[in-house]
């Protein structure tokens, strides 16, 4: 335990961002969100709150990792700890950094939006700030990690795809390349585009698709909750609970797959 604490201490010292750098990132993000929201509103005719909500959610996870921590890849196999434990520790450090920085970031954005009259002042409620800032961070990499894991399992079972870097040379590698393209183009598109309520509200979907989007797409419920908070300054407790449960679920998936999924530097 003492060893893990020492690791967290060293990792945090590597991950700590300079305050000026954090402020600069937040200022940059405010401008970014304003531009994206204006574009969404102009091009898609979305309401102010919807535009800001989507823009915030899209860039929020990035803000949580102003300076992302990752163990150097070569050091992981040299360490006298299991790689899976180090991956989990890596995620923990990222979450610790994000838990400090992400609410700051969302608070700054929401204040700016409220001052401009875009968002409801009720959105500045601390609970809502946490609901807007923490779940995108916890959901991060959960779904993509699971999809990567399933792809690797499928390729191993089908005996396709070996040394997939560079142009495929053998029939097995060609089959692997074809499978990869199919997987990344089709499955990823369904999850991250079709089931993302950027261009529509979830209520426009059938109950089955709503459930599928909420469970499979880590950002679907986040976007819906943010829309609701920014538009009316209120989110139903049941929605917040569902968001918390889903976030915990995807974080659990991410931790469970720690050994199989490369970190941010992978």
């Amino acid at each position, binding site marked *: 335990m003492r*060893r893990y604490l*020492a*690791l967290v201490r*060293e*990792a945090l*010292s*590597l991950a700590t961002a300079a305050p000026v750098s954090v402020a600069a990132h937040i200022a940059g993000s405010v401008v970014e969100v304003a531009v994206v929201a204006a574009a969404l509103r102009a091009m898609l005719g979305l309401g102010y709150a919807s535009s800001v909500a989507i823009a915030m959610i899209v860039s929020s996870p990035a803000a949580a990792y102003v300076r992302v921590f990752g*163990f*150097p890849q*070569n*050091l992981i*196999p*040299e*360490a*006298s*700890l*299991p*790689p899976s434990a*180090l991956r989990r520790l890596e995620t923990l450090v990222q979450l610790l950094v994000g838990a400090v920085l992400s609410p700051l970031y969302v608070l700054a954005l929401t204040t700016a939006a409220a001052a401009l009259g875009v968002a409801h002042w009720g959105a500045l409620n601390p609970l809502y700030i946490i609901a807007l800032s923490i779940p995108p961070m916890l959901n991060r990499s959960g779904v993509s990690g699971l999809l990567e894991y399933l792809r690797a399992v499928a390729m191993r079972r089908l005996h396709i795809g*070996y*040394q997939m870097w560079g142009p495929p040379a*053998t029939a097995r590698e060609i089959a692997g390349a074809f499978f990869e393209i199919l997987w990344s183009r089709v499955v990823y598109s369904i999850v991250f585009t079709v089931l993302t309520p950027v261009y529509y509200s979830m209520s426009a979907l059938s109950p089955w698709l709503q459930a599928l989007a909420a469970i499979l797409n880590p950002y679907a419920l986040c976007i819906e909750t943010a829309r609701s908070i920014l538009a009316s300054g209120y989110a139903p407790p049941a929605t917040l609970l569902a968001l918390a449960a889903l976030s915990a679920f995807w974080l659990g998936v991410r931790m469970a797959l720690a050994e199989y999924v490369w970190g941010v*530097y992978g």
Partner: protein
Amino acid sequence: MRLVEVDARVEYAPGRTAFEGRFEAGEGVTVLIGPNGAGKTTLVHLVAGVLPLPIARVEGKVSVLGANPYRDHWVKKYIALARQNPDTFNVFYPVRKLLRLYAVLKGEDPDAVDEVMEKLGLSSFADPHVKAVNLSFGTKRKLEVAKLMLSRSARVLLLDELIGLDPPTVRLVLEFLRARAEEGACVVVVTHEPRHLQLLSGRVVVLRGGRVLRVVESWRELREYLDRNLYEVTIVAEGGDPTALERVEGVERVAVEAGPRYVVKARCRVAAINSLVEALMKTGAVIHRVEYDEISPLFEP
């Protein structure tokens, strides 16, 4: 006592074996030599337990201190590796903090970092604004050496090449390794430099084509082996009488390529090389250059 035992086959692509066979190393120094692509780095990485298993297929047995480094992660505390390619340090982290992280990952004291950095002349890089990625290749290689020095509990030390290091650092590293070997550690060094073989004076394992070609147990045995071989020697000289060389004992063949500055190509035993040079100088020749490849006979089957 065998600290390292390998009986395995490694391939990175189907049908392309990077290493195959048995390798054992105990206390003391073992030097790995062989031409490029002989499997030296693969063998060192195999022992260190750092081969990327989904990419490299490993069949057989790898044992370090009786444990499997791919399964028993605890044993990595007792293995230290200085990689040939210092990619580890191509990151935007401050140098000193990175080494501290390495020490903690190995279960070592991170406070030893300052002392090691000073010993290697790296103190000026301890400033938190100095990022590892911006360092030169040679300095990154020094950081790889720092990893060995920080691993105080290591019983198996693996150094993949001494390239990129300045002569004082090479001397320092070799002294450090010899001292660790005398304390009972198993030191494995990959090198292409014949003088390192002499300075380390340990067992020599010759690899070629991914296999162990021969094992020479001591520096004396290696010297005797090399002395039995015939070398192609090139001498670039000016003046004197090169035909005098045909009478030198131990010389099998002499060919002179004419010119005011002529080239003598001779085939002889290593002991005869000095005699060749002396004989030529006695005739009044000025010697510009003497070249021979001391190590290559070891790579011949």
